[in-house]
């Protein structure tokens, strides 16, 4: 049974993210002949010195014209040990919202750093966003080692500097690998050019990193997504609450509490189209039937009487601002949290974070595009929330511009 690992790239523009993904796909023989031919042809036509492996993910016309990544590309490959979903994200600051998109579902982030330039503002911003999104594993790839003579001292200097910065961040698991995405050193195979490095290749690391314990199997959380009530004679009395388990392990016979009513009942059965299951856990999509007929609809939350999320209209959160129209105090937004849609007003901006120094500016009155800060919101109806650090699903929300419908903010509850 192959396990699934989702990972994302991060780091500054031109540090080699797309090239690395291309290299990883190429050296694991995950590229098809026609794709490779197309990339070779394009590289040749443009007069590139090498086959430009970044073209394997930079699929949009504008990206190829400019030689940069604009939006996330998703790529897939598998080894006998694992299957991988890769999100190759853009490094350019203008497209930070797309980097956030790619990183939000990742279990691991590869932060690339150009060995010649060392850590730059964008490396810090992305590392910070990664830790804010609580991507549990972070691998710093010091890239373009071929351009610094595979020098151990360069690698160590960057490693020390990053470690130093990372002490101020909340990063669970941090590792460092010196690579050349262009030449393939330490990507799939251990490099002979860096005998001083005694760690594993990047692929080896991706195959072995322990991800099973990253999910919350303790706090039962089941946001009701959809009520299933067949209008048929065969299933006349069927009433099931469909949704995706957001935390904990649910079993038939468990006593549960339903928010917002606060009523308690017992799980009668947990159904799927393939038959009932004995246990349901994240991220299974199931349908729960309950012993008692109580009024439950989309947006309600099933949990345990002794372990419930906080029901609140006052939300304290970190937000990443994703649009050019700044967030300001008293602004009203649509808010989507689990399966609940409410409206929210910004009550206060507590501070804005300088991503370089991690200094908190408490005088901030707005958050502009790509800025990150801590805010207080008041919602029109209660939300059933956990801290994001405890549960990525019940701790996250979107802010939506009510006029355009655009997603303008990504929130992580504190």
């Amino acid at each position, binding site marked *: *049974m*192959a*396990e*699934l690992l989702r990972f994302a790239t991060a780091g500054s523009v031109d540090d080699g993210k797309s090239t690395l993904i291309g290299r990883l796909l190429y050296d694991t023989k995950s590229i*098809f*002949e*026609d*794709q490779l031919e197309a990339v070779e042809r*394009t590289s040749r036509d443009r007069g590139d010195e090498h086959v430009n492996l970044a073209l*394997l*993910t930079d*699929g*949009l*016309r*504008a990206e*190829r014209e400019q030689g940069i990544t*604009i*939006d996330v*590309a*998703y790529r*897939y490959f598998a080894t006998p040990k694992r*299957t991988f*979903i890769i999100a190759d994200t853009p490094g350019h600051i203008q497209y930070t*919202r*797309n980097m*956030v*998109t790619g990183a*939000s*579902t990742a279990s691991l982030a590869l932060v690339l750093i150009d060995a010649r330039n060392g850590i730059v503002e964008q490396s810090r911003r992305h590392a910070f966003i990664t830790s804010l999104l609580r991507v549990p594993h972070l691998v710093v790839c010091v890239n373009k080692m071929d351009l610094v003579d595979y020098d151990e001292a360069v690698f160590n200097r960057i490693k020390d500097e990053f470690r130093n910065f990372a002490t101020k961040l909340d990063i669970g698991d941090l590792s460092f690998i010196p690579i050349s995405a262009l030449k393939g050193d330490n990507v799939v195979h251990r490099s002979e050019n860096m005998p001083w490095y005694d760690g594993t290749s990047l692929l080896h690391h991706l195959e072995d990193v322990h991800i*099973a314990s990253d999910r919350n*199997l303790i706090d039962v959380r089941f946001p009701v*997504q*959809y009520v*299933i009530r*067949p209008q*048929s004679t*065969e*299933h006349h009395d*069927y009433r099931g609450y*469909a949704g*995706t388990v957001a935390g904990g392990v649910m079993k038939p016979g468990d006593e549960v509490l339903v928010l917002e009513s606060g009523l308690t009942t017992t799980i009668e059965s947990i*159904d*799927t*189209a393939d038959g009932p299951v*004995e*246990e349901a*856990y994240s*991220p*299974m*999509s199931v349908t729960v039937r309950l012993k008692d007929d109580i009024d439950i609809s*989309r947006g309600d939350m099933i949990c345990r009487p002794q372990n419930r999320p906080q029901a609140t209209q006052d939300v304290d959160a970190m937000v990443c601002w994703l649009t050019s129209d700044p967030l300001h105090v008293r602004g009203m937004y649509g808010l989507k*949290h689990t*399966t609940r849609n409410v409206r929210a007003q910004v009550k206060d901006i507590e501070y804005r974070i300088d991503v370089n120094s991690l200094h908190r500016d408490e005088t901030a009155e707005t958050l502009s595009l790509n800025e990150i800060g801590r805010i207080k919101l008041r919602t029109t109806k209660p939300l059933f929330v956990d801290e994001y650090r405890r549960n990525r699903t019940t701790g*996250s929300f*979107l802010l*939506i511009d009510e006029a355009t*419908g*655009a*997603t303008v903010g*990504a929130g992580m509850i504190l």
Partner: protein
Amino acid sequence: MTAPTTYELSSLQALEAESIHIFREVAAEFERPVLLFSGGKDSVVMLHVARKAFWPAPIPFPVMHVDTGHNFPEVLAFRDSTVQEMGLRLVVASVEESIAKGRVRERPDGVRNPLQTVTLLDAIQQGQFDAVFGGARRDEEKARAKERVFSFRDEFGQWDPKAQRPELWSLYNGRHHKGEHIRIFPLSNWTELDIWSYLKQEDAPLPSIYFAHEREVFQRDGMWLPVSEFTSPKESEEVVTLTVRYRTVGDIPITGAVESSAASYDEIIAEVAATRVTERGATRADDRLSEAAMEDRKKEGYF
């Protein structure tokens, strides 16, 4: 099911769970969804997962087929039997009707595929559909690799790849105004191999042309085209009888067969796992037009 002690899902189970989540989200938040059903393998998987998402209730939306008039008869027969067995409501959007009504004009080369966009957008408008499920996968093509699961379309049905909404976690934003709609891709993260493994696991029926069979074919532009009502060989093109199967299902004039003796799911899975050419590269003339052919069509409102 998986071993209960580890609480792990296999990657296929995780993909299915994600797709079910997407179907339910759309059913809950949209007024008039519709599912594009071509009879191709991806739309078969889509329909199969949709059935699971709402079980034991029926699928709460209709399906739509954009009929170019150039279909494989086996696929049309499969479409109709599936619709009947599952008790679905089928909307047929016909390219031939669009031509008759003067909405589009037949191309000199007779290829209907590019004309579908107008027919599709007209049908979406007429049915007032606000969510349109498509079976596209990100591993198919480089522009598709860039698209969101919930992909916003403006009032002209256009996709703007440079202004996609951020899409975080599993929180999908389906807001739109009247006249705009959202394309929904529940199989975004599936690969061709996942599709086949799933079809086998679920023992789901497919149109017969996916499995090896004997067919009279001739070679044109490096593809094996069938001798059919819509495609006949020129004098210089020699007709041979080969054992072939199809990797994708499109219009007859632009869909090539591949030489293959794979007649069962297991044999197809072995073949797909070993193949060195993408399914679209191997079999689709429509993608060979230019480097950004798919991106350009998608911008105009194609699937």
